[in-house]
């Protein structure tokens, strides 16, 4: 599984990254967590509000700092 955090690196993006890392750790799954900070790349995903979260290339959330539990629900679907 590939999880991407889309955002230019503000505190909200950092918090979302930390929550995603915690969710992956708690679920004990294999996942690669990457960051997309380039605005052109973020826009290519259609994201107009950051931070956003993409799982295996599909944006599943934008404009919100999802909690660890919300991320766990999304990635264990």
């Amino acid at each position: 599984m590939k999880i991407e955090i889309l955002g230019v690196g503000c505190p909200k993006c950092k918090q979302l990254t930390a929550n995603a890392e915690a969710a992956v750790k708690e679920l004990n799954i294999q996942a690669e967590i990457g960051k997309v900070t380039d605005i052109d790349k973020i826009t290519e995903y259609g994201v107009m509000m950051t931070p956003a979260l993409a799982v295996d290339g599909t944006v599943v959330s934008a404009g919100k700092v999802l909690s660890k539990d919300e991320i766990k629900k999304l990635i264990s679907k």
Partner: protein
Amino acid sequence: MAENNCMCQESGVLIFPCSGGSDVGELSDRVARKMAKCGQAKMFCLAGIGAHIPGMIESAKAANKIIAIDGCQVLCSKKILEHAGFTPISFNLKDLGFEKGKTKVDDDTIEKVANKISGGKVEKDISRNSGGCCGN
């Protein structure tokens, strides 16, 4: 990375004009752009919602309020948004007295409609800045 490019600001009000091919479609588009320029709303791409681009859909979900502006009673913008699961506040320019094929799209009309939709906020901006809303 510079934080001044951050896209994580409050999403607030998103506005989706139908931007149709007729005079009233053009009016919907120019009203939305006027409101966006005056800071009353953020204009979004209706086409992206229609295409079900996940990033666009998820970005729109973060809005506090979604406004659809349609030029005519076909209500394409409202219906596209509803199809994607949103419940927009809908404005039909026909209900505001503008008829397809008989509408002159000029600055006065754009301002008048923008004021009706924004509850007079565009007009207030004009009165604050003698040069017109956002200096235009």
